[in-house]
C-alpha cells in the first residue's frame, strides 16, 4: 500500500469524479461511508422504535409498557441513539472529510473493515444482552448497579472500533499531506472533523478507563470501583462524546450551507479558533453531572462548570454567528439584499438539507444551548438535577441539533455517494419540519414537567402523589411530540432505504437539484468579502438570541432563590 500514492488524482488510483461537484471520490472511502451510514440509520430506527414506546409510556394517560420493559427499553434507547447511531454516522463523516475535500485516498481498507466489524459486533452484543433482560442499568450503568459482563464488553468493542476508525482518519490526513494530494490548509469541514476526532480520542480513552475495571468487576476478577470515581470518569466519556457530536454537527452546518448556498466562513481564523476552544476546554464538562454530588467540592464544581470562563460556550456562540453570517453574505452576494431579512425569505426552505440545517442551528442554539448552560450552572443544578429538565435539554441538542443535521446531510450523501436520486421528494421536503416540530414539543413537555419536579427515568408519577394536572398535561405534550418525531424518523428511514433500492441511478450526471437560490443578474460572487458590516440580519438574530439567553438564565436564578437555603 505504501508504494501507491494516496493522491486521488494520480493515475490508477481507484476513484471517480463526481458528476455534480466535480470533486474526486475515493472508492474505498465511498464503500465505508455507505456501510457506516447504513448501519447508523438501522440503529437510529431501533432507537426510534424504543423512543416511541418510551414516549407512550411516560405519557401517563397511555402508560403503555410494563415497568420492567420500560427500564429495559430506556437502556436500549440511550445506547442505540446516543452511542451507536451517532458513532456509526460520525465515522462515515470522518471518512468523507479526510478524503474528498483533500483529494486523498483512504489510508487503509483493512483498518476500516476492522473498525466496522468491531463496532458492529460490539453494538449487537450490547443490544442482545439488554433485550435479554440482563442489563437493566440505564445507559449510565451507575455502580453499584451491575449489568451482565457482555454489556460492558460490547461497549468496549464499540469504543475500540471507533478509535480504530479515528486512527484511519488521522493516517489518511498524514498520507494526504505526504503524497501532496492537496496544497495549502485543510478546509474548515475537515478541520472541524479533525477537532471532533481529537475529542473522540480523549473521550474514548475515558471510556476505556472506566469500562475496563467495571467489566473486570462484573466478571468477579477485581474489586468494585468507587461509585463517585465511576461517575466522574464515566461522564468524561458521556459528556465529551456529546462534544464530538457538536463538532461533527457544526462541520455539517458549514458543509451543507456551502453545498446548498455556496456560503463560506466569514472569517476562517475565528471559526478555526472556535474549534480549538472546543478541544481545549470541553474536557472539563464531566462536572455538569456531579454538581449536587457528595465529595467533590464547590470550587472544583465552579471551575469545571464554567470550563474556565465558559470558553467552550463562547465557541458555540461564535459558530452560532458565523454560520448564519456566512449564509447572509452568500445570499446578499447573490443579489437578495432587500431590508434586514430579505435574504431569509429567499432561502430555499423547501430544500430538506437546508431546512434541516437551519432548524438544527435554531433548535440547538435557542433551545439546547440556552438550557444547557443554565442547567449546568453550579447552583441552578439544584433545581434541575435528574428531573425531566435534563433530557428536555439534551433532546434538543443531540436530537434536534445533531441528528437533524445528520438527516439533512443524508439528503446529499445518498445522491452523491450512493448515486441515486431520492424517491418521494415531496415527502422528503416535509420531513425535517415534522422532525423539528416533534422534537421541540417533546423537549418543551419534558422541560416544563421537569420544572414541576417530575423526575427523569421514572416509570410512573402517580405513585408519589405529588404531581398535579399540569405535570400530566406536559407529559401529554411530551407524548405527542414523541409520536410526531417518530413518524418523521420513520419517513426518513423509509425514504433512505427506499432510495437505496428504488432511487433513479445518477452515474455520470448531476443529482436532481433540491432547490438552490440562483444568483440574480449583475451580481458577482465574493463581492462582499471585505465588507465587515454586511451581516445586519445575523446581528439582529444573534442579539435576540442573547436576550432570550439572559432572560432564561436570570429567571432560573430567581427560581433558585425561592427554595430553602442549603449549603
Amino acid at each position, binding site marked *: 500500500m505504501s508504494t501507491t500514492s494516496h493522491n486521488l488524482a494520480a493515475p490508477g488510483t481507484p476513484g471517480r469524479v463526481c458528476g455534480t461537484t466535480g470533486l474526486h471520490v475515493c472508492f474505498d472511502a465511498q464503500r465505508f461511508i455507505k456501510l457506516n451510514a447504513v448501519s447508523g440509520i438501522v440503529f437510529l430506527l431501533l432507537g426510534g422504535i424504543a423512543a416511541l414506546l418510551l414516549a407512550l409510556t411516560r405519557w401517563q394517560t397511555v402508560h403503555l409498557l410494563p415497568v420492567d420493559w420500560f427500564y429495559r427499553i430506556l437502556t436500549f434507547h440511550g445506547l442505540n441513539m446516543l452511542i451507536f447511531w451517532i458513532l456509526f454516522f460520525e465515522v462515515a463523516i470522518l471518512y468523507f472529510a479526510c478524503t474528498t475535500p483533500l483529494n486523498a485516498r483512504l489510508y487503509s481498507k483493512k483498518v476500516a473493515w476492522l473498525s466496522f466489524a468491531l463496532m458492529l459486533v460490539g453494538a449487537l452484543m450490547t443490544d442482545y444482552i439488554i433485550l435479554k433482560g440482563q442489563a437493566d442499568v440505564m445507559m449510565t450503568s451507575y455502580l453499584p448497579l451491575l449489568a451482565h459482563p457482555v454489556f460492558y464488553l460490547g461497549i468496549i468493542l464499540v469504543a475500540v472500533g471507533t478509535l480504530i476508525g479515528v486512527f484511519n482518519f488521522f493516517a489518511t490526513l498524514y498520507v494526504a499531506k505526504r503524497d501532496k494530494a492537496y496544497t495549502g490548509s485543510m478546509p474548515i469541514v475537515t478541520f472541524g472533523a479533525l477537532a471532533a476526532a481529537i475529542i473522540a480520542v480523549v473521550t474514548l480513552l475515558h471510556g476505556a478507563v472506566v469500562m475496563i475495571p467495571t467489566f473486570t468487576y462484573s466478571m468477579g476478577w477485581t474489586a468494585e470501583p468507587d461509585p463517585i470515581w465511576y461517575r466522574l470518569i464515566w461522564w468524561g466519556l458521556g459528556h465529551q462524546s456529546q462534544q464530538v457530536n457538536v463538532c461533527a454537527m457544526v462541520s455539517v452546518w458549514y458543509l451543507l450551507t456551502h453545498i446548498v448556498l455556496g456560503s463560506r*466562513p466569514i472569517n476562517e481564523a475565528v471559526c478555526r479558533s472556535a474549534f480549538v476552544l472546543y478541544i481545549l476546554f470541553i474536557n472539563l464538562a464531566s462536572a455538569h453531572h456531579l454538581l449536587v454530588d457528595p465529595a467533590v467540592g464547590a470550587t472544583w464544581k465552579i471551575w469545571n462548570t464554567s470550563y474556565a470562563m465558559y470558553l467552550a460556550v463562547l465557541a458555540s456562540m461564535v459558530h452560532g454567528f458565523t454560520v448564519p453570517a456566512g449564509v447572509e453574505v452568500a445570499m446578499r452576494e447573490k443579489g437578495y439584499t432587500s431590508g434586514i431579512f430579505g435574504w431569509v425569505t429567499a432561502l430555499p426552505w423547501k430544500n430538506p438539507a437546508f431546512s434541516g440545517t437551519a432548524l438544527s442551528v435554531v433548535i440547538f442554539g435557542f433551545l439546547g444551548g440556552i438550557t444547557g448552560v443554565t442547567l449546568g450552572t453550579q447552583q441552578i443544578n439544584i433545581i434541575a438535577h435528574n428531573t425531566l429538565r435534563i433530557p428536555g435539554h439534551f433532546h434538543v441538542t443531540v436530537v434536534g441539533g445533531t441528528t437533524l443535521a445528520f438527516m439533512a446531510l443524508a439528503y446529499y450523501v445518498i445522491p452523491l455517494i450512493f448515486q441515486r436520486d431520492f424517491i418521494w421528494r415531496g415527502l422528503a421536503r416535509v420531513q425535517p419540519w415534522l422532525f423539528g416540530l416533534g422534537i421541540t414539543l417533546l423537549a418543551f413537555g419534558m422541560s416544563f414537567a421537569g420544572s414541576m419536579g417530575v423526575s427523569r427515568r421514572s416509570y410512573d408519577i402517580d405513585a408519589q402523589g405529588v404531581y398535579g394536572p399540569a405535570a400530566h398535561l406536559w407529559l401529554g405534550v411530551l407524548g405527542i411530540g414523541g409520536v410526531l418525531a417518530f413518524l418523521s424518523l420513520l419517513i426518513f428511514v423509509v425514504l433512505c432505504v427506499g432510495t437505496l433500492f428504488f432511487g433513479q441511478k445518477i452515474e455520470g450526471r448531476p443529482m436532481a437539484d433540491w432547490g438552490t437560490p440562483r444568483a440574480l443578474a449583475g451580481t458577482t460572487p465574493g463581492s462582499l468579502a471585505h465588507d465587515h458590516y454586511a451581516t445586519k440580519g445575523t446581528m439582529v438574530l444573534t442579539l435576540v438570541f442573547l436576550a432570550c439567553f439572559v432572560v432564561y438564565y436570570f429567571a432560573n436564578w430567581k427560581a433558585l432563590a425561592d427554595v430553602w437555603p442549603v449549603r
Partner: protein
Amino acid sequence: MSLRPLTAPWFHGPAGHEKIWLGCAILWCFVMSLMMPYWHFRGKQNSTGEAYTVKPADFLARTEKFVAANRVGTYKHPGNALLGEVPVVEPPPGGDAYLIGRMWQWYPALRLRQGETYRIHLSALDLQHGFSLQPLNMNFQAVPGYDHVLTLTPTSKGEFTIVCNEFCGIGHSSMTGKIFVE
C-alpha cells in the same frame, strides 16, 4: 471555500459585526462565570459537596441510633405497601439528622422546625438514589459509601415528599419519603 483547501492567506482578526458579537459573547460568558462565585457569598442555595466516607453498615447504625434517641411518632404511607411504616424523627434544632435511601424507601421521616438549620446526613445503603424534595424541587445525589451533609434551613411549613430520582431498580418510581415542617 468550505470544501477545498485554502491556498490564499486566511489569518485575519475579527472585524465589523463579527467583532461586536464576539465582544458581546465574551462579556456574557464573563458575567456567567462571575455569577457562581458571587452566589456562594451572597446567595443562600449552594451545593458544597461536604461529604465523608462511611461504610453503609456504619451509616445504618448511626441512623438507628438517631432514630432511637429522637423518635416522636410513626408515619404510615397511605396506599403504598412497599413503604409500610416509618418512624417520624425530630432532630434537635441546629442538630444532626440522618436520612437513608435504600430500595425502595427513604428512612426515617423527619419532622423539622421552620427557620431552624439542620445538618442532614444523606447516604444510600445499596444503590445510588436521588434525593428530590417535592414540591420544592430541590435535588441531591445519595451515594453508597458517602455521608453527604446538607446544611438545610426549611423556610416554609407543610408536608414535603422526597421522591427518588436516580434509577434504582423495579420499585424506583414508588420510592418516597417524608419531611414535615412545623
